[in-house]
């Protein structure tokens, strides 16, 4: 799936990616920061959240997980919440990467990061993005257990 990267005027930088490929969150953060030449010396704070596939859920072992999404709407929704974050907080950059398709325990599901001059906006924007993503972005998890499979019905409350 393609990287949707937005470079806007007024210092608004948001990047969104939905990918079927495994990704290393720390490597991606490193690469993203390397690309932030315009923020050199301006970024005092970055808050990140990484969500990882656990090997059990509701007391059952989970062997694989299938993540379905609504192509088009997903990206549009993630763009919308990124824009809202820039409106609400004094931040410099945001990055959201979300995996879809089949994955295994310990695989990274999602990465959210917010860069800012100071830590308050960085933390608040990061938390906002992951909460909005979890509650509203059109993704659905299906777990394969030792016997059979099931759709996950609700997320853990934040």
């Amino acid at each position: 799936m393609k990287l949707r990267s937005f470079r806007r005027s007024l210092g608004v930088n948001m990047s969104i990616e939905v990918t079927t490929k495994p990704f290393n969150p720390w490597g991606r953060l490193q690469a993203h920061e390397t690309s932030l030449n315009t923020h050199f010396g301006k970024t005092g704070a970055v808050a990140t959240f990484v969500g990882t596939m656990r090997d059990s859920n509701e007391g059952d072992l989970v062997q694989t997980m299938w993540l379905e999404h609504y192509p088009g709407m997903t990206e549009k929704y993630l763009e919308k919440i990124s824009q809202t974050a820039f409106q609400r907080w004094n931040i410099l950059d945001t990055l959201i990467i979300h995996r879809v398709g089949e994955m295994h325990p310990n695989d990274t599901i999602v990465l959210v990061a917010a860069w800012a001059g100071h830590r308050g906006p960085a933390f608040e924007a990061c938390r906002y993005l992951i909460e909005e993503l979890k509650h509203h972005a059109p993704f659905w998890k299906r777990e394969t257990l030792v016997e059979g499979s099931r759709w996950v019905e609700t997320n853990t409350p934040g």
Partner: protein
Amino acid sequence: MTITVKFFASLREQVGTSELQLPVTQPLTVSQVWTQACGNSSLPAHLLTAVNLEYVSCDTVVKAGDEIAFFPPVTGG
């Protein structure tokens, strides 16, 4: 003149298809789209609805060419 109706995740499995085309000859609400698409049942309250990639309420009116999606509560992240 048709609209596209999409279903996702567990709902897609229950309905038995991911997408269908519905002919429209008059304005329909999202609820009416559901009823026509899914054999006269009424729209279950827990389902979420989107028109043209944006969340809408079930009384939103749709027109030919629109893409309407029905899906269960989301579980990403």
